[in-house]
């Protein structure tokens, strides 16, 4: 049995290796992912707690906990990490600052593992913010691009807002319950105002990381980062950190009645992201919105208590979305543009087309690919939950998600296009991930067994297949057969969707507003606060000047003053 702290070691060493040696850092990172994966089953289960430091009697612990949830997320980080680092060796050219790229990427992987294995909230926040900052540095990796800088800034600021709320929630819980240990907190949770507020803090922290409404708008912009980053952080792992946190703290959130809030957030995100994904024309942005959409499915499942289904979908999504992003990277490499209307990739019997199709089918929810099974598990959960509104929303969401991903496929691929090609580093991960997507669905029973539950496939499978068919039909009719219902795309609604429901504008105005107030305060500081100080200085100088003038140096003045003073004293003595 291995101490759980060792799980941070492989990627931790990669950070140092990348900084010092740089050469072959991609392969080292890939190997570190493999080592992480191999370490997972060897970790000693349960809780390991070591005192970290003491401040004025408050004890801070370094504590790690190994349970199914952390092992699952750890597996996703390690597993996807293998492919992402390998893919990066092909994607990144020697001209780039590879030292920084691999060091930060490995730092991210380490911090992410730190988050999922943390058994106390202080330590979780510690790694949580490191995850956020590595995302900032990676989104802004191409720092000569103004758009990348702006995207990185936006992503980081949104995440900082979430971090502050999470920090507040953690401190509230610690103050009230006297501990930050997650297992203890979950056992002793009470439904009171403090816990509700802390819960809200945790939820805000989580949705800022997982790009859920209303803190979702940073994710599409974050696609400015290199594609391996989009694939690793912004689809497979980092954005799952928020969902992980909610899954981890779910008993607490349910106890204080925040589950409906999660459901509402999820539903709004599902609608918004699916609508935008249907009109977006940037190959990576569509995937970003679909990530948001699929994360909202998972959040919905968590909100109704179908935890196992949620985590199953989380896992399968990580694999097929990483696959789609990597394939998108190859296509961008081939076409030299990210605009889907100009890309024209050849469909048919070639590696990229086939693996992409597998990813698309999995995301759309077609059997026997993994996405079908995990989506079906959520459907089952909803059916068991029994809320008709949610079932209707989910059904529409399934149609829409099938529609936008088939639209994506139809817009990209045609018989006459260029054949997608890239070097071995970029193409090798594709068939492996595609293979995992194919067999992943069959893993459903294993997964549920592992989680001590029973998988079940029933009537929902047929319904959901039907819904997917509808979605496919819509995409096929419009984008393959050029059916002229395109007036929709010129309507106000489509325009509104293209404008991202105005969230982009809203947040930039908010930023400008805060900045404007800052400018006012700066003016205020310079002119009023400091003006007052300078004013007092001037008054002192003027007074001094006046007093100085009394000393005229002329005898009559002094004699006059002397007489005046004498008279005053005499009169004062007389009257008192």
């Amino acid at each position, binding site marked *: 049995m291995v101490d759980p702290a060792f799980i941070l070691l492989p990627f931790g060493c990669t950070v140092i290796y990348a900084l010092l040696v740089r050469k072959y850092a991609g392969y080292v990172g890939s190997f570190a992912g493999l080592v992480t994966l191999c370490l997972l089953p060897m970790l000693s289960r349960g809780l390991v707690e070591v005192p970290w430091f*003491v*401040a*004025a009697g408050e004890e801070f612990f370094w504590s790690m906990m190994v349970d199914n949830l952390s092992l699952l997320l750890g597996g996703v980080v390690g597993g996807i990490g293998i492919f992402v680092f390998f893919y990066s060796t092909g994607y990144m050219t020697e001209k780039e600052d590879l030292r920084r790229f691999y060091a930060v990427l490995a730092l991210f992987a380490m911090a992410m593992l730190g988050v999922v294995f943390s058994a106390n909230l*202080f330590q979780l926040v510690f790694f949580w913010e*490191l995850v956020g900052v590595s995302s900032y540095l990676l989104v802004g990796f191409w720092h000569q691009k103004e758009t990348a800088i702006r995207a990185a800034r936006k992503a980081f600021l949104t995440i*900082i807002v979430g971090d502050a709320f999470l920090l507040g929630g953690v*401190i509230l819980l610690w103050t009230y319950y006297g501990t930050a240990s997650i297992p203890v907190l979950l056992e002793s949770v009470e439904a009171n105002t403090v816990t509700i507020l802390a819960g809200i803090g945790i939820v805000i922290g989580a949705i800022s990381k997982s790009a859920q409404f209303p803190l979702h708008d940073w994710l599409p912009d974050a696609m400015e980062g290199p594609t391996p980053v989009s694939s690793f952080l912004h689809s497979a792992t980092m954005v799952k950190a928020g969902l992980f946190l909610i899954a981890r703290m779910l008993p607490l959130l349910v106890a204080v009645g925040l589950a409906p809030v999660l459901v509402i957030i999820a539903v709004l995100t599902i609608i918004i992201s699916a609508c935008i994904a249907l009109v977006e024309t940037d190959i990576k942005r569509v995937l970003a919105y679909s990530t948001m959409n699929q994360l909202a499915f998972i959040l919905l499942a968590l909100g109704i208590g179908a935890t196992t289904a949620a985590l199953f979908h989380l896992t399968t999504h990580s694999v097929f979305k990483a696959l789609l992003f990597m394939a998108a990277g190859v296509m961008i490499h081939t076409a030299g543009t990210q605009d889907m209307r100009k890309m024209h990739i050849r469909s048919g019997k070639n590696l990229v087309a086939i693996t992409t199709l597998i990813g698309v089918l999995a995301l759309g929810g077609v059997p026997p690919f993994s996405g079908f099974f995990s989506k079906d598990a959520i459907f089952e959960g909803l059916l068991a939950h029994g809320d008709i509104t949610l079932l209707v929303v989910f059904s529409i969401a399934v149609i829409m998600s099938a529609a936008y991903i088939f639209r994506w496929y139809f817009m990209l691929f045609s018989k006459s296009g260029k054949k997608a090609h890239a070097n071995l580093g970029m193409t090798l991960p594709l068939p492996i991930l595609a293979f995992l997507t194919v067999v992943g669905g069959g893993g459903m029973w294993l997964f549920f067994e592992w989680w001590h539950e029973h998988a079940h496939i029933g009537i929902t499978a047929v319904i959901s297949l039907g819904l997917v068919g509808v979605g496919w039909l819509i995409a096929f009719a419009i984008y393959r057969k050029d059916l002229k219902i395109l007036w929709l795309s010129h309507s106000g609604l489509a325009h509104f969707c293209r404008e991202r429901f105005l969230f982009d504008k809203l947040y930039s105005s908010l930023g400008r507003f805060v*900045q404007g*107030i800052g400018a006012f305060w700066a003016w205020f500081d310079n002119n009023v606060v400091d003006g007052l100080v300078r004013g007092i200085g001037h008054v002192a100088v003027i007074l001094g000047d006046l007093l100085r003038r009394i000393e005229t140096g002329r005898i009559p003045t002094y004699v006059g003053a002397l007489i005046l003073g004498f008279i005053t004293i005499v009169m004062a003595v007389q009257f008192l």
Partner: protein
Amino acid sequence: MTLSILILIPILTALLTFFVRKKTKDIATVGSIVLAGFAGYSVTLFNTAERGMQLLEYYTWFTVDSFEVALSLGTDGISYPMILLTALLGVVAVLVSRREIKKDERQYYALLMLLIASIIGVFASLDLIVFFVFWEAVLVLMFLLVLKWGGKERKYAAMKFLVYTGIGSAGLLLVIILLAVFAGTVSLTDTFVLEPWVQYTIFCSLLFAFFIKIPIVPFHTWLPDAHVQAPTAGSILLAGVMLKMGGYGLLRLGLLVVPDMTVVFQTFLFAMGTLTIIYGAWVCLAQHNLKKLIAYSSVNHMGFVLLGIAAGSTLGVTGAVFEMLSHGLIAALLFALAGLVHQKSGTFDIDKLHGLVSVMPRTAWLLTIAALGGLGLPSMTGFIAEFLVLFASFQTFGLWTILPLLGIILTGGYMVRMLSRVVFGKSKAKLSEKKVNIIPFAILTIVIFILGIFPFLILSIITASAFT
């Protein structure tokens, strides 16, 4: 003898640099390194299990009637970290001066060394009259440094600094006189029995004196001017340790002499601390001068120190001291880097400095690390400090702590804005970072990370404070 040696080493170095006339820089460098080395050695003499003042020394200076004024030295968990910080920043200040200062080196290094000695004197003296002598010496020496080696508007800034903080010192002098009259002693090792009205008067004049020094909004406007005009080493010591003299004074005199008053004024202190945090951060958002931005960020961070003191608990005091230490390191790094940038580019203007990373990558990445440290990134000291202060504040003030939490978001905002303007992007300027001595920056960065990951190294010292 430990503390007096720590004061004597820089004084001796000052004398040597002034009178030897040769190798001025090297003598100063060696002197500062010896000081830091001895400070490092002195850690082994500090007993972390001891709860009160230690490393005590006592030399009678003069007596008037039965009133004795003594060079009485001693330290505890509050002042000792500050002494260590001063010794460390002394090395950094000397190293960054080596390329920057070109005129009258002898005078410069002698004054700088005397300044360091006086700052250590402030933190180490237990007799308030000696404390006040050191305190004033610090002001005058800093005034001279800004006046002679400062930027273009150094005369205005130096005068403003001297007069403004000098007025603050008047409050401190009043406190000492009141103590001498009503308590009959000015030694911090004694206990003070005072009538309520004296306590009120003392506390109010303490607040006046230290609010200017820390500085707390609205008494802060001397700081940006002084910083922008000061030479880099001056800024490093000013932000790194001199502002801490205010926080230290409030902790020491407020909690030791009139402890009840901090409870009476708790809400007021909280309000002022929060105001300082939020206002400081918000003003930062609109700054166009890099050094001014860092100066206001000092205001922002010193608000956390007051917040920790306001909380009144042991945790709050610990947090406040840790925040002082943390900010001392991070602000020093930021100012050192700003000085380097200015040295190479000739400007502090944020709009002109765009895209530093493409021309001065090492400097730019260090600046990124320092800025991230400033916004409280875990693994650096700022995170632990802010966490402790906010934790203490939550315990005392409950949900009102949401206000300073919002300040953290603003802090993130201005730091990220600064990074995306100054560090990232394409640069048109032709700068180079050849011949840059990386050592001072490396020292600070490493210490920031070490204390951020292993905070117990310093927390064990802080916990040995007089107020547990």
